[in-house]
């Protein structure tokens, strides 16, 4: 439905509202609603921290997660599959005053675009990556993803996946990420604070959000039985972080720790570009000067 048509029907929300009038097409019970709801609170929480909503830019990939770009009444870049991170990086480099939050799916960001995530971690670019990790490709109707457990029966692996899942947290840690957390779409307060902390962290932050696909991979019961807050972790310690990450390896048994695994302070990539001011240069004069050096 167009906004014009919606206006005629008096159904548009004011600009102060966090959601647009786009018709929501997530399945009932989808964990993505939890993430969208977190944003409703986050906009106000960030404003209190001095980040007005117009400075927020949300980047999404392609997949069920990415519909959030249509639903959030914020600046958005609805990008392409696997490429949220480089788009978000470009936006941050262009204007470091923006708060750039990339949303991605697990297939999107740990599969198609894995290299980008590792390099964003390596650079410590000051963007946040929220991964809607549901262990299944939802929009393409049910195939295994990089974080599906071995034996996962999907449409492309009818006899069960014969691959081990990857651990995105360990990858991000070895890549150099300075903020690594895991959260769950059940537990609104926990999710909100994880997203908030990640966004406020200066540097590359990853929140791997266990987000349940109600239609193709309903893990509510499995997660509910295993999740636990990480209350015994020292997030300044890489060893602690690694030990806790290894308690659960995206399949099988073990405690699924929720919370901040690792947090460190480091110079960010965008800092190196912050003072560059193209407007301060007389281009024609600079060109003449450079050309003259080639005499």
């Amino acid at each position: 439905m167009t906004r014009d048509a919606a206006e005629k029907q008096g159904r548009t929300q004011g600009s102060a509202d966090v959601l647009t009038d786009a018709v929501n097409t997530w399945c009932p019970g989808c964990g993505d609603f939890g993430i969208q709801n977190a944003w409703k609170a986050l906009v106000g929480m960030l404003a209190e921290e001095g980040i007005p909503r117009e400075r927020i830019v949300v980047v999404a990939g392609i997949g069920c997660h990415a519909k959030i770009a249509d639903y959030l009444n914020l600046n958005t870049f609805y990008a392409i599959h696997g490429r949220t991170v480089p788009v978000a990086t470009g936006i941050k480099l262009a204007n470091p005053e923006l708060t750039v939050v990339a949303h991605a799916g697990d297939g999107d960001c740990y599969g198609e675009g894995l290299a980008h995530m590792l390099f964003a971690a390596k650079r410590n670019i000051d963007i946040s990556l929220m991964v809607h990790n549901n262990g299944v490709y939802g929009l393409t109707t049910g195939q295994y993803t990089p974080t599906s457990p071995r034996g996962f029966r999907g449409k492309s692996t009818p006899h069960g996946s014969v691959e081990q899942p990857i651990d995105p947290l360990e990858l991000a840690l070895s890549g150099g990420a300075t903020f690594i957390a895991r959260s769950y779409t059940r537990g609104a307060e926990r999710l909100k604070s994880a997203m908030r902390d990640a966004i406020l962290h200066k540097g590359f932050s990853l929140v791997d959000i266990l987000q349940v696909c109600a239609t193709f991979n309903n893990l509510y019961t499995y997660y509910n039985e295993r999740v636990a807050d990480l209350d015994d972790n020292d997030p300044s310690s890489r060893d602690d972080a690694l030990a806790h990450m290894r308690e659960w390896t995206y399949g099988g048994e073990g405690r699924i720790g929720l919370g901040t695994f690792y947090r460190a302070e480091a110079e960010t990539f965008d800092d190196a570009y912050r003072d560059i001011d193209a407007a301060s240069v007389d281009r024609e004069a600079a060109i003449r000067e450079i050309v003259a050096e080639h005499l």
Partner: protein
Amino acid sequence: MYDSFSVLVGGKAGDGINEAGALIARLMDRLGYRVYVEVDYPSLIRGGHNFATVRCSADKVACRTEELDVVMALNDETVERHGERLADGGTLVIDAGGENGGDDAGGEDAGGADSKATTAGSAGRVVMGVPLGDILKELKAPPVMRNTCLLGAFCKIAGVPWEALEETIRAHIPRKIEQNLEVARRGYDTAEQRTTLPALDLPHLPVITGNEAVGLGLIRGGCSAYVAYPMSPSSGLLHFMAEVADRCQLKVVHPENEIAVMLMALGMASAGQRAGVGTAGGGFCLMVEGLSLAGQAELPITIMVAQRPGPSTGLPTYSCQTDLHFVLNAGQGEFPRVIVAPGNAEEAYYWSAVAMGLSWRYQVPSIVLTDKMLCECSFSLDLDALPDVPEYDVPLWDGASPYRRYALTGADGDAAKDADRGPDAAAADRHEDAAAERGTSAPEVEAARGDAAIGVSPLAFPPLPGEVVKIDSYEHDERGITTEDPAITVRMQDKRRSKWRGLEAEVEKLEAVAVGGDPEAATALLCWGSNGGVCGEVGDELGLRVVKPLVLSPFPAAHMERALDGVERLICVENNAGGQLLRLMRVNGFEADDAVRRYDGRTFAVEDLRAGIEEVLS
């Protein structure tokens, strides 16, 4: 063939061949000559056969000759490969000393000098031995200074005053200047004068590579960020932008791969930063998904695509014109794009600036299609000979709320607001567009419709208090919210497609097809890109018209029609096997009678092309 003087320096990779070529170019430039330097090297770092050819003339030259006036050989292979190319009265300089530690330019050369003297010795050709090894040993100079020694010898052979070389060395050799001068002087004193290249009363011009000229053009076009992954032959552009980043205040980024390159640049564009990217065909393959995103999301981006022979890795350090249809058609879906194909340094500068300007004026991707020859060869650059670079306005949002990133304005907007129009109304629009494309719409009507007629929505960038900017890779409505509605889809497709009209009108205002040679001749050479130099020279010599499109998308059909007016025979010259420009011409209703093609990765020398044309005409 223009009156010119050509010198080739050859040796192994690591011998400083390119540097020697560059210094000869600087030297001749200092004397008022226009220079062209072609570098030929295999894809390796040490060993192999490298050579640089420097051609200098009072005329502007942008191609090589097969015939050489001086060959300076740092190894036997140079003598074997290029000795036969010496002109009557030419000079072959070899290393006569043979003491220079393990290199095959040593004893073997000295031993073989006699036989080579026989080969080269006819028609007044001379083999001149310079004891490079002995000189270096005596002056305790490192082996890499052999090229400096040859430079000294060249200076003497060419009858160039020593002072000119001394100035050149002082200006362009960064380290060990005094030792280099000493080595060069010994080369100068050892050699014999063979000719006199007089100083010319012409302004002294800078010598720059095509890569550098593209970089300067992008900067002139407002580029404030350059993102690239290294790939021959485009890496020189990345290096140049990194080098000038501080004083031009550029954000230069080298990310993990070309996919990231393109997407980062589009992220920058979405936030208002003018970004350029560069690569060769293989890297462009990875950029194509981003190119299509730029088409759908209406993001401006300028991409330099440097051609090198493929398929796949092909011949990484050689030249060709094989990616025209790739760049014309790359990307899923239909969207407008600008493609320019410069052929020398001035054109590279001007058209890169134009490409970036048009990208931002129309929110479309633009491609600067170059090749190894243009990228890595050096040319005398005369910025003052260029027309002014057009200034293209960027249509910005006027602040009227709500902001709609993909607003349909004016005539198109009125249509869009009529929600009940249905597909028939959209079809009527398409008929109108088609009529406009056929040129049946009155120009004043076109002008009155302004931006509305060309599908350009005003730009704005976050942060905008009270507003949102939504960019979308899906089909979307005016706000940038995803839709699958058929009527909106048609309107948005038509909006984007209508930019072709605006682009065509812009191209009409530019010198999009250059005509050279004898503009009245009934026989014409048709060429594009870096073949412009060699075709221009052969055209002048044989009294042919030379027609060269500089814009390949949108195809400058009206310019082409005028350029070919009165042509009875058209010969299409290309560096590919399949005739890519010819195919594009045919699609646009033009036909050529003959073709001359070279696709061995090497550029046409004047003599090759002349022979090819004469064969066709005989």
